[in-house]
């Protein structure tokens, strides 16, 4: 009833009845691309407002209140401002790499975003090796960040990029290992298959080891977005803003947007693999049939966004709670605590799947 699948198939039928097949496909691809870009920008704007508001609330402030009702138009005002700002050209840097880095970051972020499954019918990319695809394409961002730091011809960006690179490469290990733990439990690498496997109960309630995997995934994912207690690439006193110092105007804005959408993407992937994606919450018992029916009434895209934004809120909560780490503490946390635990957790999960 409230699902979008009906609209999509109606568009498909309307197009294929009037156009040849190649034109139908072309138009649909363009539509999907535009739709994804619009959703990408929209989610970035929502997240920027959410971040500012939640940050303010944790500090007993109100946050932006002037633009629109309750400050709801603030991100649009910010966007218009940043679009009008000048892009300052640098004199002695590698122009080609400078702009390539930006697009690598954005492409990596957008392609990972495309792997999210927003509802039952709203699936952008669904490979049979979806988890691998996500892990691989999200690593593209590291390349972009390193290139951005290198091509800016500035020692602060270079140090910031090195820090960001070390952090991202390290934390990708434990986030990847926790995803693989879930792959062992689900028995497939296809993201839609993983969600399908959670139609009875979410993975979170299928095994105790999923909890450990989820906590490790959330910590590692939080570190991968370069935020919160792990925001080492941005250090005002030593490095100023890290790898994007030399970017101005909308080029900086794209880094900013990419960072925010990465936060949502991490939350979305966490939702898909641990919290059942668009699957409603079901109690697997005879007496709960009515409850399950009520849960099924809620549209699936609402389920997905509610869970994903719940995880985003958790990430913001963590961000405004903890003091930031030193670089050695950061690497200690990854290599000596999270990595061994996630390896052990993977082993235990394999035993669980084999014997239960």
């Amino acid at each position: 009833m409230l699902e979008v699948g009906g609209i999509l198939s109606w568009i498909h039928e309307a197009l294929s009845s009037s156009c040849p097949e190649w034109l139908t496909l072309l138009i649909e691809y363009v539509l999907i691309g535009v739709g994804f870009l619009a959703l990408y920008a929209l989610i970035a704007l929502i997240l920027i407002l959410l971040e500012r508001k939640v940050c303010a609330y944790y500090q007993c402030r109100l946050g932006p209140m002037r633009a629109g009702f309750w400050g709801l138009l603030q991100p649009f005002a910010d966007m218009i401002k940043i679009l009008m700002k000048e892009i300052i050209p640098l004199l002695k840097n590698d122009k080609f790499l400078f702009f390539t880095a930006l697009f690598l970051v954005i492409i990596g972020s957008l392609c990972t975003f495309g792997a999210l499954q927003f509802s039952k019918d709203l699936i952008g990319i669904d490979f049979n090796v979806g988890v691998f695809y996500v892990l691989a394409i999200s690593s593209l961002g590291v390349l972009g960040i390193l290139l951005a730091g290198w091509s800016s011809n500035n020692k602060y960006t270079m140090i910031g990029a090195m820090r960001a690179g070390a952090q991202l490469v390290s934390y990708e290990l434990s986030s990847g290992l926790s995803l693989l733990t879930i792959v062992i439990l689900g028995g497939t690498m296809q993201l839609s298959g993983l969600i399908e496997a959670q139609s009875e109960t979410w993975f979170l309630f299928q095994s105790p080891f999923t909890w450990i995997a989820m906590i490790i995934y959330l910590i590692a994912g939080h570190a991968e977005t370069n935020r919160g207690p792990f925001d080492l690439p941005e250090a005002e006193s030593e490095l100023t803003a890290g790898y994007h110092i030399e970017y101005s105007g909308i080029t900086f804005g794209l880094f900013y947007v990419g960072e925010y959408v990465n936060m949502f993407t991490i939350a979305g992937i966490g939702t898909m693999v641990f919290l059942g994606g668009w699957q409603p919450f079901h109690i697997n018992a005879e007496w709960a049939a009515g409850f399950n029916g009520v849960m099924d009434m809620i549209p699936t895209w609402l389920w997905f966004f509610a869970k994903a934004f719940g995880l985003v809120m958790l990430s913001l909560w963590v961000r405004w709670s903890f003091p930031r780490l030193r670089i050695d503490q950061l690497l200690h946390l990854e290599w000596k605590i999270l990595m061994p635990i996630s390896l052990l957790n993977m082993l235990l999960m394999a035993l669980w799947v084999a014997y239960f």
Partner: protein
Amino acid sequence: MIKYIKDLFSGIYALLQGMYITNLNFWRPKVTEQYPEDRQTARQFERFRGELVFDMNDQNEHKCIACGLCARNCPNQSLEVITKSITTEDGKTKKVLDKFLYDLGSCTFCSLCTQSCAQKAIKWTNNFEHAVFNRSALVKQLNPEGSKAIERKPTVAAPKAAPAAGQNENQQ
């Protein structure tokens, strides 16, 4: 190994404590003032030093005896007490206040003037909207035109020494 596990769990417990505290803050009432909207209801603390005024009574009389202690105590020379001599009905010559000029632009709100005033003739109000278009508008005459000092009957002895602390300091 035991220490590793112990550290891990005590660390997690400490982190959860921190998150509990920030969660309490999240739900607490917010302290931000929505200034132009709430200017009718906005309220400062009583000891807030907004602007210096004369403590007038309802007969348009003030307490200033033009002794000039406030002007001498002012570190910035923001105050200027201009006096004039008048002859009273019984033939005595008396020094009274002509103009009390207060330069808001150079005032540091140190409150030394109100503390040194023996008559408690000047006090602070909460008005903080001082913006004007011209610096000369910041120099204000505190005694209104036509106002005069409270007449003291000759039988009354000299007023008791004012307490050392300014009157605004011991409120709230």
